[in-house]
């Protein structure tokens, strides 16, 4: 809310400048490895934006995000390889399917308290992964889906990392603008009300059940879109792409970046991906270093790098 009452003038210039910088970046840096890392950051950013909308804006705990990411990827992969769909209809189908699964998973959220929904979503994620592993005839089990065709935009085929970079950036910008719009709409206000105090929200006439499921599904849909992009980028997907470890990684990105802050999610994704890549050289100590970063960032700044302070159970000490 503070952001609406206090206009940050520098913000109006800040984001366009960053965007321009990111648009120029691949023209300057032509290293394929760096581009690949950047593309992975775009994919995780889209998924994390959705994750943050569920956890940071609506306050629902979610531990099955990788499953929705996987549902998007598998829908796209199967439609494109088995039924010969092109990318855009497959993307739309992936978004629709994840949205529906989001509703199916969000419905138990109505009955369960926060921590129980956390385990139910975790269980859903594991069930999804094991099913994808075991269902040989449909998903080719452990081998996964191979040979997913690259997408094309207005007849222009996206093949190189250079192309994927811009497509990924477009995905991130679109998701970012979409969620900014949603967060400032009636839905976003309802979500914030539910997060802050569900009972109070009900008393004010917010249909909490409806908005909880809706917000959950919106977040899951973004994971599906990210998964869809992952499928065409890697052209091969397997159950090992969608483990609980992936969910945990996204969760860390969102929380280190800052709950309730959309730019924070992108920043968090960038930090974690860079950290994992950077510390690949000291492979034996990478978990140690990442663990230390997690603990000390949060001890120093409990709301994450860019998070809002509002979301906590105890009253803030003074201030607004």
């Amino acid at each position, binding site marked *: 809310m503070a952001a609406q009452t206090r206009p940050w003038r520098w913000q109006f210039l800040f984001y366009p400048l960053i965007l321009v910088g990111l648009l120029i970046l691949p023209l300057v840096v032509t290293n394929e490895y760096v581009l690949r890392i950047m593309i992975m950051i775009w994919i995780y950013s889209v998924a994390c934006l959705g994750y943050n909308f569920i956890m940071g804006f609506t306050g629902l705990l979610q531990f099955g995000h990788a499953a929705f990411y996987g549902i998007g990827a598998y829908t796209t992969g199967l439609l494109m390889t088995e039924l010969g769909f092109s990318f855009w209809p497959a993307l739309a189908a992936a978004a629709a399917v994840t949205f529906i699964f989001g509703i199916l998973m969000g419905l138990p959220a109505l*009955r369960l308290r926060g921590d*129980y929904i956390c*385990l139910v979503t*975790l269980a859903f994620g594991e069930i999804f992964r094991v099913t994808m592993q075991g269902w040989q005839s449909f998903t080719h089990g452990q081998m996964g889906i191979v040979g997913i065709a690259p997408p094309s935009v207005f007849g222009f085929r996206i093949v190189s990392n250079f192309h994927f970079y811009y497509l990924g950036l477009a995905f991130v910008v679109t998701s970012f603008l979409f969620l900014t719009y949603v967060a400032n709409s009636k839905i976003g206000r309802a979500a914030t009300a539910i997060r802050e105090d569900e009972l109070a929200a009900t008393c004010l006439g917010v249909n909490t059940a409806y908005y909880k499921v809706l917000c959950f599904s919106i977040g899951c849909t973004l994971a599906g879109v990210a998964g869809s992009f992952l499928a065409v980028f890697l052209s091969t997907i397997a159950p090992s792409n969608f483990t609980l470890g992936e969910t945990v990684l996204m969760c860390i990105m969102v929380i280190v970046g800052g709950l309730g802050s959309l730019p924070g999610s992108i920043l968090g994704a960038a930090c974690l991906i860079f950290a994992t890549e950077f510390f690949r050289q000291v492979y034996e100590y990478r978990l140690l270093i990442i*663990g230390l970063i997690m603990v000390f960032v*949060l*001890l120093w700044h*409990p*709301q994450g790098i860019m998070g809002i302070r509002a979301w906590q159970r105890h009253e803030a000490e003074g201030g607004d």
Partner: protein
Amino acid sequence: MFIQQLINGISLGAIYCLITIGYSMVYGIMRLMNFAHGDVYIFGTFVSFMFMVTYKMNIFLACALGMLTGALLASFVEILAYRRLRHESRVISMITALGAGFIIQNGEEIFWGVELQRFPSVFPADTFTVLGLNVSTVQLFTLVFTFALLAAFHLFLTYAKTGKAILCLAQDITTTSLMGVPINRTVTIVYALGGFLGVVSGILYASAYNVISISMGFAGTIAAFTAAVFGGLGNLNGAIVGSLILGVTQSLAGAYVSTAFKDVISFGLLILILLVRPMGILGEKKVERV
């Protein structure tokens, strides 16, 4: 066959009990999902393993040292990673817990490597037949041990001053602190107890299956989480019931369906139970206060 699997399941459930109790107790007091719990217990188990195998130490002394390490490590993690975040949103300490877990995992990797290793039998490996059913001494010891520890723990909570303080904390931290209970010390004791019980169960598990590996850490966390939710988070009797259900389900599913799907089946059962009883089997319906 069925009863045989039931016995195996109960002994597996008994092992889960000890991990779950520590987990559920922390949850009951701090409302924290302690994702470092599994890593702490497996670290302690590795320490006993090291003393037993590398230094050829007396088995009981090695086990005791492992349990002590578990207790110390758990309290250390609490002081370092959770204490300052107690008044922040709970998800924050969930992530520092994960971070602490990563650090411990990395330590295990450096000290003991990532490979699966053979854990020596702590108990004499023997099998005897009762009414046509095979019961191994390990299972028997596990059951006796778990029961004795649970009984001791129950007595501790009911009669000891610290035990009573723990129960009070679970009800209301602020009020308890007003009654003069040293909050920080008691919370640390809770974590230490959880770590201690966890290592006991780790040793029992490792010697029952004769393996030890790093991956057992996170698997233990998930098992404890699942069992705790089955029974009702934060409820200690529920933790026991939940662990037994989890053990029996996994054992039966492994025997009758397939070992690959045993987790799917226990998770499926969990979702069903939660749909019928959202607060877990023994959990109390919480009245939301304004």
